[in-house]
């Protein structure tokens, strides 16, 4: 068996696959950032806003505004661990957050942990269909 490449589909399929892989990476980055682990922080909490979504409390949105101007969505597991006025400090990629100089252990949320294998499956499936979109088998 051999394969021939469909020239007319090669670039469009490659572009769609690239968009798909970018979306996979985006999902991984966004869910990881919500744990605060990848980020460096040295700011005071000036507002915490909890907003309801479709399946409360599972998908409640916890928005934290920092004194450096950033407003970020954070995992609900850690959003309840600090209050307005707390000073938060950590280095990039560290799993310990200092809340008013008291250490708080950070962990990857169920979302971040689940996203990694789920997006691996998505990337493999997209790549498989992309190969099939750009090539056909000759018996």
């Amino acid at each position, binding site marked *: 068996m051999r394969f021939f490449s*469909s020239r*007319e*589909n090669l*670039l*469009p*399929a490659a*572009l*769609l*696959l690239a*968009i*798909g892989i970018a*979306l*996979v990476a*985006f*999902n991984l980055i*966004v*869910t990881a950032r919500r744990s605060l682990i990848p980020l460096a922080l040295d700011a005071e909490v000036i507002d915490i806003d909890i*907003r*309801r*979504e*479709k*399946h409360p409390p*599972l*998908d*409640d*949105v916890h*928005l934290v505004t920092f004194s450096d101007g950033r407003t970020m*969505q954070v995992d609900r597991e850690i959003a309840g661990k600090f209050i307005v006025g707390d000073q938060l400090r950590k280095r990039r990629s560290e799993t310990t957050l200092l809340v008013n100089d008291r250490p708080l252990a950070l962990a990857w949320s*169920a*979302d971040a*942990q*689940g*996203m*990694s*294998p*789920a*997006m*691996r*499956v*998505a990337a493999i*499936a*997209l790549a*498989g*269909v*992309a190969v*099939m*979109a*750009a090539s*056909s088998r000759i018996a």
Partner: protein
Amino acid sequence: MRGIATFAAFLIVPALAIAFGYGIWLGHRTDYVGHFLAGAGGALALLSIAAFAIRLSSGIALGWPVVGICLVAIALGAVTEATIFRNAKFDEVDFANQSLGAVLAGLGVLAIDLRERWNLGLTALGLAASVVLLATGWHYAFL
């Protein structure tokens, strides 16, 4: 029959594989798989009609039009996520998941068309599948 098998192999099976991935590892967030399925269904409806229209009216390659339609579907998804489906905020992860569904639908249509030139039967199949995907997606995203 061959058209149905090709359709299943390049669209339904990969969509189910990805959906099961969400279900197994992100089962606590049914809205994620809901958005993925709805994105695939919405894009597939647009792609099915557009692919048939292109195949009827001209002999041009389907590749770039499919990319364009996928981008339109992704943009429509962004607009609906920011407006009528906006609850707490514009959810970037919901947007990414529904866009992944649109990308899979685009790649699937290209893979199918390469083997079975897109025809009326595939259009009907695509529209029927899109209704099922949208209804299932709605169920998991909102109910």
